[in-house]
C-alpha cells in the first residue's frame, strides 16, 4: 500500500464556471465523492483551500522575497485542494482521480507521498521530523 496525493488544479476560467454551481449542489457533489472514498476505506486526509483572491504570493526570484496579494496573475493554474488516499497502486490512485467530480473543468495531479521511512534514518533532521510525526500522529 502506498499513499498518493490527488491535487486539484484549476484555471481562472474553470473557477468562474464553478461559480455557476450552487453551494449546496457543490457540497452534495463533492460529498458523494468523499463518501465513496470513505466507504472504500482508502481516504486518509483531504483539505480544500479558500478563495485564491484571499491568498498571498511570496516570490523568491529576486534578491529579497517580494510579497504580492493574490490572485496570482502569473500562474495559469491554481492549486485548489488535495486528497491523500492509501491504495495498492498508482493505477488505483488514477482510477480514483478519474472519478473525482470535475466542477467546471480543471485538472487533478497524482503524486506519490513518500513515507519518512524512505529517508536516511540516521540523518539528524529526519530523526527530528520523525519525532514530530510520532508526537502528532502523522507517521
Amino acid at each position, binding site marked *: *500500500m502506498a499513499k498518493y496525493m490527488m491535487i486539484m488544479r484549476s484555471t481562472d476560467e474553470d473557477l468562474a464556471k464553478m461559480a455557476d454551481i450552487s453551494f449546496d449542489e457543490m457540497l452534495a*457533489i463533492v460529498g*458523494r465523492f468523499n463518501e465513496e472514498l*470513505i*466507504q*472504500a*476505506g*482508502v481516504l*486518509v486526509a483531504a483539505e480544500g483551500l479558500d478563495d485564491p483572491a484571499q491568498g498571498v504570493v511570496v516570490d523568491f526570484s529576486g534578491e529579497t522575497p517580494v510579497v504580492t496579494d493574490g490572485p496570482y496573475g502569473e500562474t495559469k493554474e491554481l492549486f485548489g485542494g488535495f486528497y491523500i488516499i*492509501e*491504495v*495498492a*497502486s498508482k*493505477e*488505483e490512485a*488514477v*482510477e*480514483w*482521480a*478519474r472519478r473525482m*467530480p*470535475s466542477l467546471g473543468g480543471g*485538472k*487533478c*495531479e497524482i503524486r506519490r507521498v513518500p513515507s519518512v*521511512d524512505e529517508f536516511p534514518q540516521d540523518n539528524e533532521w529526519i530523526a527530528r521530523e*520523525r*519525532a514530530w*510525526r*510520532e*508526537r*502528532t*500522529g*502523522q*507517521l
Partner: protein
Amino acid sequence: MPAAVDGPPGAGGSAAAGGGGGDRGAEPVRRAVEAVWRIESARIVSTLARYTGDFALAEDVAQEAIAEALASWPRAGIPASPAGWLLTAARRRAVDSFRRRSALDERYALLAGPLVEGEAISGAPAPRNRPEDDLPWDPDRVDDDVLALMFMACHQVLAPEARVALTLRAVGGLSSEEIARAFLVPVPTVQARITRAKKTIAAAKVPFELPPAEERRTRLGGVLSVLYVIFTEGSTATSGDSLLRPDLAHEAIRLARMLAALLPDEPEVHGLLALCELTAARFPARTGPDGEAVLLADQDRRRWDRSAIRRGLAALGRATAAGRGLGPYGLQAAIAGCHSTAPSTAETDWERIVLLYEALGRVAPSPVVELNRAVAVAMANGPQAALAIVDELVATDRLAGSHLLPSVRGELLARLGRTEQARAELELAARQCRNLRERAVLLRKAAALPPA
C-alpha cells in the same frame, strides 16, 4: 469522464484524449483493469448477483468481463466509465447464458430489458440528468447488495478457506494469483476453492439476500471472523519465512472499513476494525532489520503508527458508544488499546488488561485467551500466579501441539529461575512452531538462558 494520460503535463501526447487513443501496452492495461476491479468488484458482482439471482453465474460473467476488458482495452482505450463497461459486458454474457439455458424465461426478459432499451454494448449508460444516474447501479440498493455479497461469501455452508478466497476475490477484487501469493498456495488451489465454493452455494440454494433478522447476528459473526482470519494471516503468517504480510492485513482493514461504513450501528464491526488498526499500528516495530520478530516488550514504541492508533481508538470509541457492552473483538481491541497508549511495558495498565481478558474469557472462552490472561497476570502479579493458570491449561490438554503454551511456560519458568525446565519448554515450543522467524526467536531465548 476524464481520460488518463501518463506523465507530466505537456509531456504526454494527445493520443488518449477522450478515452480512445492508440495502442496501449498489455501491462499498463492489466494494471488499470486490476485497479478498477479492486474498486468495483463488490458492486459489480453484487449488482449482477441480484439481477441474475445466481451468484455463481454473476461471478463467472464478471470474470469473463475482466478477460474481455484485458483483450479489448489495449486497442480501444480505457472506456470513460470502466465500471459501466464491465457491468454491461458481464450483463451481456449473463443474458447469453440465460438465452442458452432457456429461451424466454422471466429473468431473461428482465435482463435483456435495459440492453434493448439502448444501453450501448461497449459503453456506459447514456448520460442523464442527476449525477447518481451516471452510476451503472442503483444507488439506493447497491449498499445492501454489497452487504448481501459479503454475507454470501462468508456463508457457513462454505469451508473456511473457501470463505476467505471468495471474500478476497468477489468483495476485495483480488485476482486468484494475488490470493495465491498472499496465502503461499498454488494458483490452481485457489481457483479450485472458488469453483467448489460456487457449486456449494448453488447446491445449497443459498439465496442472494440480506439474512433475515433472526439470523443476522450469527451471520455477521461469520463475516467478521472471515475478515479476522484474513487479518491474522497477514499479521502473523502461520507459515513461510516472513513474519508479516502487511498487504494482506491491509486488505482485511479495507474490507472492515467497508463493512463499518455499511453497518455503522454494529459495535462489533467497529470493534474488529479497531482491533485490526491497533494491531497493524505495531507492524513497523514488530520486525527487526533482518526480518526477525521483535516482542512487544522490546519494541521501539516510537515506531508505532500513531495515525493508525488514533483511527483504532476512534473505532473503539464507536464500539463502546453503542452502549451494549463490548463483544470479543471490542474487548481484544480494548486490550490492544491499553498497549497502544502505554509508554512502556512497565507502565502498562496490566490490572486493566487482566480484567479485560477475564471479560473476554466469559464472552468467548478459549484456551488462547486463558493463556494470554496468564501472560497479563504474570505482568500484574508475578510469574508464580501465572504459572498456575498455564499448568491448568497443560493439565486439561486444551492447547496440545501449539507452540504458544510451551513458549509462555518456558518464559515463566525462566523468570522463576527454573532454567533447565525453561530450556526444555522453549525448545519444545521451537519444534512446534511453523513460522521460521518465530522459531528463531524461541531458539535464541533458549540459548540465552544461563547454563545449568
